[in-house]
């Protein structure tokens, strides 16, 4: 690992700098650096370690959805937010999150399966998630009506900071723990009451 050429590291950094938000895949980097995939991966990892080890570095390297990209270190987030005028976080509703979770873990999955699992219609959230570029059609089921099969997109992996869909944390089996999360329940309860107090439309 230690004998990664310095010039190659510099070249890699300059490529990633140029690519910015678009990032570069291992395949693209391998071609650009004229290295085989394995050596490319080693070089990328060396660069990442350099960033992590250097305390005077404000940036580091992340793999999101198959693309390597340079990002600022988490510790500077507050300072950067201060610099950005309107850092509106893209909000996502609880309903959309539930639908997204089901699609992420069960993909490819049809709308009917999602509806059944949630006990409510999920047309709205599905449409929103498609429009936000987080889910996409992954073909059709070969049965009557040929329903659409949904799956997640690379943008989903990016927005949720996942290297690949395999990196999703395993689903928690409820059997293992005592049922009933008192805290969660209290939160929900309080939310509901607060909403009532405001007396308005919760949308």
């Amino acid at each position: 690992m230690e004998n990664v050429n310095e010039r190659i590291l510099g070249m890699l950094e300059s490529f990633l700098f140029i690519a910015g938000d678009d990032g570069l895949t291992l395949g693209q980097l391998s071609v650009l650096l004229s290295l085989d995939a394995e050596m490319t991966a080693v070089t990328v990892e060396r660069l990442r370690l350099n960033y992590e080890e250097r305390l005077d570095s404000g940036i580091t390297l992340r793999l999101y959805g198959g693309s390597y990209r340079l990002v600022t270190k988490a510790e500077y987030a507050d300072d950067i937010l201060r610099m950005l005028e309107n850092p509106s976080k893209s909000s996502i509703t609880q309903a959309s999150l539930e639908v997204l979770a089901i699609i992420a873990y069960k993909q490819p999955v049809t709308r009917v399966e999602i509806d059944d699992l949630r006990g409510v219609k999920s047309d709205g959230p599905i449409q929103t998630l498609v429009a936000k570029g987080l889910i996409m059609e992954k073909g059709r089921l070969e049965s009557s009506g040929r329903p659409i099969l949904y799956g997640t997109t690379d943008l989903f992996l990016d927005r949720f900071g996942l290297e690949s869909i395999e990196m999703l944390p395993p689903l928690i089996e409820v059997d293992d723990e005592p049922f009933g999360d008192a805290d969660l329940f209290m939160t929900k309860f309080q939310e509901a009451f607060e909403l009532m107090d405001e007396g308005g439309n919760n949308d």
Partner: protein
Amino acid sequence: MTYKVKLEAFEGPLDLLLHLINRLEIDIYDIPMSELTSQYIEHLHAMRVLELDELSEYLVLAATLIEIKSKMLLPVHEGDVLDHHNDYEMEDDPRDELVARLIEYKKYKEAANSLKESAEDRSVHFTKLPEDLSDYGEIAVTESDEKMNVFDLIGAFQKMLERKKLRSPLSASILRSELSVSEKMDDIMTKLEKIGGKCPFESLFEDGDVNDLVVTFLSLLELMKRLDITVIQEGNFGQMIVFAGQEDI
């Protein structure tokens, strides 16, 4: 205890049911059906703001609950009962399906929460715009003749919206923190002194962005209030002149 809870606080009938199970501290593997059913229905009554469409989904589950409850009241045939202590522990407990659904739903509900955390972890890492090297070329994102799909278009569009945020607002906030009305007031007075005590109103607004213009305007108002300057307009629609000090009108 009666209370009204807005429907939107729940993501659907299963969510409401989970909520009740939690509140009543019920063992999910041994649900007291009559208690849960009555609580559920009481809740439905309390929820005033129901849209018809959603109401039907809640009612479907209510029907299911009542059905399970009634099944459990039916006498059990001798032959169906296995040698167990609990009367309800039959081959098919009428509650099994409901319990399985609840557990499955809860699993994804928790996954949704963990996704939310992932998104928050991700959101503290900022990235930069790709360098604009369009004069030289661009990096290809697809290999050769790959079939594209419309979802790539949506992704590209959303990414662009995200970038727009990164692109524009930067300068505005920094400028704002650099400007203040009191500083601008000094600037204006210095400028007036330098150019002989008067200048056209417009000339004070020649450069700067929205922030500058607002601050300049407010500074002028404040200076007028303090009688440090006088603004005179020569007739309707005439040029407005800013004078240092008090000027006879």
